[in-house]
Each structure stands twice: as structure tokens, then as C-alpha cells.
């Protein structure tokens, strides 16, 4: 991932140990990571093989938790919903973010600052608050979104967005668009500003039209950021939980016919509402593996790591 540090430049470092100073400075991190990351991580590995009833009683069940997940249609539904959401993030939200970044990149700077601020602002609002707000915006007949779609395309005034299984996922995707389009736009904008202008000019002097310049010059020179943004949005998408929880309060975030249930929503229900921390840990591991495989594939296929 490109959030990573660059390989340490030797000249930027002081070659002596200076006693124990660096160790002392790192001690809080090391202690807290051991207690709250390493230990829980190992423990999650153990826990996944137990069935628990609350935090205090447990029975070893071997691979039963994973077998249960493999067979459970509710978990499959959750996985499917979350995957659809992740695909929408990548193929709907990111192109829109990139489009807005391109529009902003060439504007005059005062207006640019204003638009950037406005488009980014939904990110200040926590997912729970966004969910609460949009839950009301999707109200049949009176909700802002229902009224808006009626005025624009003559459809949707009476639509039960959050009560109709077919419309729950679209409602979540629309809400997520509102929140995150501006967030990824910031990354794309930063990347666009570091693209070599000379290269783009050379291409357009050579007769490439605007689209070709974008496709063959601009996009390839910002591929690191594109990969970074795609990977982080997939990781983020698979961790969707709070938005549907607040959007669909009657059903604890699962929606009619489990149409809004996400993987983490499922984890929350089995582990914290249902008390089976073992099954919860098994869901957590499954999710971790999915996220790891997708990020690894993504980085591998695009060959960014090799450079």
C-alpha cells in the first residue's frame, strides 16, 4: 500500500543508539499493541474454535463455527450484500470521485477551494449520524430524496426505500455516495496535481485528444494512488456496518429479508447481541482473509508492488 513508508533513506538517520531513547519512546506502542492487538489477534484465532455463551463460558467445537458459516444462508446473504456494496464503491463511486477531481483540477483556485470543502464536508459526519439523517430523507411521500426523484424523473414519491428488499441496497449505496465521493476525490485531486504537466502537453502536441491524454498519460502516472484508493475502498466497504444499522433501525440494520445485512452486521448480531463470541471471531477471520486476498490480488495484478 502506498501509505507505507518509503524505504528508509540512510542519510536521514542518526547512526547512534542514543542510549535507550528510541525504545522508551516506542514502549507505550509495544505494550499496548501486545495487549490490545497481538494478544487479541492470537486469542481470536483460538476463540474461533470455541462456541461461547457470553464472555465467560465456552466449549471447544473445532471447525464447527466455520462449517456453520459455510452452510448458513444468512451469512451468504450478508457476504453477497457486502460484495455488491464493495463493487458499487469501486465502479460507481470511484469514477465519480475521479470525475469531480478532474473538474476541480483545472478550475480557478478560489472556487476550487470552496467546492472541495463542500464536497468533502459529509465526511465530518459520523456514519451513525448520516444513517439517522438519510433514514428520514428516504421517507415515502415526505422524504427529500423521494420528493427529489419525483420532481426529476416522475418516479419514487411513494417508494418505500427502506422497506422494499429490492431498494434497500440502492438506498445504502446512494447514502454512501453522498458521504465518500468527496473523500476519495481529495486523493485523486492530490494525485492529479503531481502528474507531470510537461508529459501531458507533449502528448497533446503530438496530436492526442483530451481523452487519449487522460487515458494514456494522466491515469498511468497516477496508478499508485488509484490502486491505493481502490484497495482502501474495498477494505472500507467490507467493514460497512454503522450506516445500515442507523438506516434500518427497526431490524437492527438487517433490513427486510436481510436485504441490508452486512458481514460486520452479522458479526455484531451473533457475537454481541447473540453472545457467541466464538462464532463472531470466526466471522472476523473470514472477513480478514477476504480482505487480505482482495488487497493482495489487487496489488499483485496491477503490479504496483513490483515497482
Amino acid at each position, binding site marked *: *500500500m*502506498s501509505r*507505507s*513508508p518509503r524505504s*528508509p*533513506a540512510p542519510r*536521514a538517520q*542518526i*547512526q547512534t*543508539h542514543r542510549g535507550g*531513547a*528510541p*525504545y522508551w*519512546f*516506542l514502549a*507505550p*506502542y509495544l505494550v*499496548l*499493541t501486545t*495487549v*490490545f*492487538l497481538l*494478544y*487479541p*489477534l492470537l*486469542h*481470536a484465532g483460538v476463540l474461533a474454535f470455541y462456541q461461547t455463551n457470553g*464472555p465467560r463460558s465456552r466449549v471447544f467445537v473445532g471447525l464447527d463455527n466455520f462449517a456453520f458459516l459455510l452452510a448458513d444462508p444468512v451469512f451468504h446473504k450478508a457476504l453477497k450484500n457486502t460484495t455488491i456494496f464493495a463493487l458499487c464503491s469501486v465502479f460507481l463511486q470511484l469514477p465519480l470521485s475521479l470525475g*469531480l477531481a478532474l473538474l476541480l483540477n*483545472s*478550475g480557478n483556485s478560489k472556487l476550487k477551494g470552496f*467546492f472541495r470543502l463542500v*464536497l468533502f*464536508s459529509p465526511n*465530518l459526519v*459520523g*456514519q*451513525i*449520524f448520516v444513517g*439517522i439523517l438519510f433514514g428520514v430523507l428516504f421517507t415515502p411521500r415526505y422524504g*427529500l430524496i423521494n420528493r427529489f426523484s419525483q*420532481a426529476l424523473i416522475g418516479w419514487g414519491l411513494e417508494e418505500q426505500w427502506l422497506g422494499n428488499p429490492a431498494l434497500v441496497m440502492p438506498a445504502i449505496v446512494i447514502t454512501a455516495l*453522498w458521504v465518500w*465521493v468527496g473523500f476519495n476525490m481529495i*486523493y485523486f485531486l*492530490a494525485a492529479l496535481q503531481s502528474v507531470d504537466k510537461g508529459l501531458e502537453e507533449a502528448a497533446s502536441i503530438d496530436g492526442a485528444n483530451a481523452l487519449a491524454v487522460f487515458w494514456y498519460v494522466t491515469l498511468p502516472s497516477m496508478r*499508485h*494512488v488509484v490502486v491505493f484508493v481502490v484497495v482502501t475502498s474495498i*477494505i472500507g466497504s467490507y467493514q460497512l*456496518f*454503522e450506516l445500515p444499522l442507523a438506516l434500518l*433501525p427497526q431490524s437492527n440494520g438487517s433490513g427486510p429479508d436481510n436485504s441490508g445485512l452486512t458481514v460486520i452486521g452479522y458479526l455484531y448480531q451473533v457475537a*454481541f447481541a447473540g453472545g457467541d*463470541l466464538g462464532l*463472531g*471471531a470466526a466471522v*472476523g477471520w473470514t*472477513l*480478514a482473509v477476504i*480482505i487480505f486476498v482482495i488487497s493482495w490480488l489487487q496489488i499483485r495484478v496491477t503490479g504496483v508492488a513490483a515497482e
Partner: protein
Amino acid sequence: MNSMRWALLGMVALFFVLYACEPRRPRLALGYLKIVLLALASAGVLAPFVWLVAAAFKDKSVLNEYVFFPPLRLWSSATLNLNNFRELLAGKSSVQGTVYFWQYLLNSVFFASTSTVLQLFFCSLAGYAVAKYNFRGKAWLLSFMLGSLMIPGILLMPPIYELMVRLHLVDTYQGLILPGVVSAYGIFLFRQAMIAVPNEMIDAGRVDGCGEFWIYLRLVMPLVRPMSAAFCLISFLGSWNSFFAPNVFLQSQDKLTLPVVLNLYIAQYANEYGVFLAGTLIAIVPPAILFFALQREFISGLSTGAVKG
């Protein structure tokens, strides 16, 4: 609202008019198109905020009558008033006695600001150690940190919950704050910023007899102020808006934070949503103020990590 369609049609028409004026190099037309698209996107983003403000102040009786605010000539205490806020701020009885909404606000402020201060200190300190010292196991430590960024936090929730039960930290703020005090993400952010601090300066500090910790605090920290500001905002927003952990760990009514309480209010006030919308409005004001104060640092801090890769 059908004027909306006419307005859109007008905008499209104006584009073609401008395009017709100079069809060879349609600079004006394209510039116009850009502004219009950006303005429409911004309007789409702002509309829910405006609607939220309107809904929080509108009286119950006219809540659904107007899309946003009532027309100016109808502004009066019968249409716009503070009833929603009054209802929200009124004391409510619970197992812990009467609890007022400001208690939750206070809890959120306490939780978010304490976490922010602690995170700022410990992440920058560790970031300084990995930016400016060579020590045994450093390469190993850095790749461990990088790997830990990939672990979804949720995986750790069930075991951490069990741990908290055993440490008797459930339903305490210590239990909520402690696990997040130093994050690999924060350490990397500060490492990025501190690598750029010239070594000559640090050595000069040493020659003057400054201790290692004082060099960090007095020399290096002032130089990375923009990153500190960005980091403060990131971590404040993170704690202020965090829901999963507070929802799981906090149990007493008088300890809950705003996201947890407002999530409960959706069901409690299902029939008068003006009340929880007023609460939502109150909940998004503090981060907004902080953001406008620090927005320049924030946006540049956000994108440093990504672009240089």
C-alpha cells in the same frame, strides 16, 4: 418543485448557446459546463444539511408541509421554534437517575478530546523514534506496523471484549480509550512528517545539552505542527463519531456517547423525528467547527501518505 426540471433544461440550453458561439474552441462553454456540474454536485451534497437544519427547527405540525423552510412570510413561532430541542434537552429518567442530553454531549467531548490528546502524544513520540533513530529490530518493527494496518479492527472486537470483561474495564472510559492510544497509522503519519526535519538541528540540540525527550518535545514537535493539526482532527473525528466500541463497551445510561444515544433515539422517537434530528444537528456542530479551523492542514495531511508512495 417542477421548476427544478425547467432550471435544469435552462442550464443545458445555455451550454448549447455558448457552444454555438464559438464551436471551434469552446472554452467558455466547457468552463461553464465544469462550473455547472460542480455546482450541482455541491448542491446535492449541501441539500441534506440544509434539510437537517430546517427539520430540527420546524414545528411538528409543519414538518412535512414544506420541503425545506417555510416561506419567509410564514416564519413565526408556530412554524419555526425550539420545541424539538426542548424535548431533546429535557431530563429523562433511567436506572442511573435522571439523565440530561448535555450529559451525553459532555461524555462525547471528554472521550474525544482525551483520546485525541493521548493519541497525539504517544503516536508522535513513537513516530519520532522510527523517523530519527536507528536501532535493532527497526526494519522488523516497521513491517509489523505496516502489516497491522491490514487487520480489520472488527476481528479484534470479540477477544478485546472478553479481555475487558476480565480486566474489569467494561463500562469505563479507560477501557474505551486505552486500545486506541497508539495506532500504527498515526505513527506512520508522524514518521512521514518528521523524516523531513533536518538532522543538523537535532544534533545542535544535543550539543546544547538537550535531552532526547526534550529534543522531541521542544524542537521537533513545533516543526511538524501542520501534521499535528491534521492528526488531531483525524483522531478527534474518529473518536467523536465512533460507534461500535462505545456501543459494545458502555452500558450505564449516564456514560453513553452521542452516536450511541442518538441511535437509541431513532426507535424511541420514531413518531417525532424532529427530536433526534435536533440531536444529530447538535452532534455534527463540534467536528464542523474544528474542521473549519483546521481544514487546510487536514486536507494536505490526508493526502501526504498517498501521493508520495
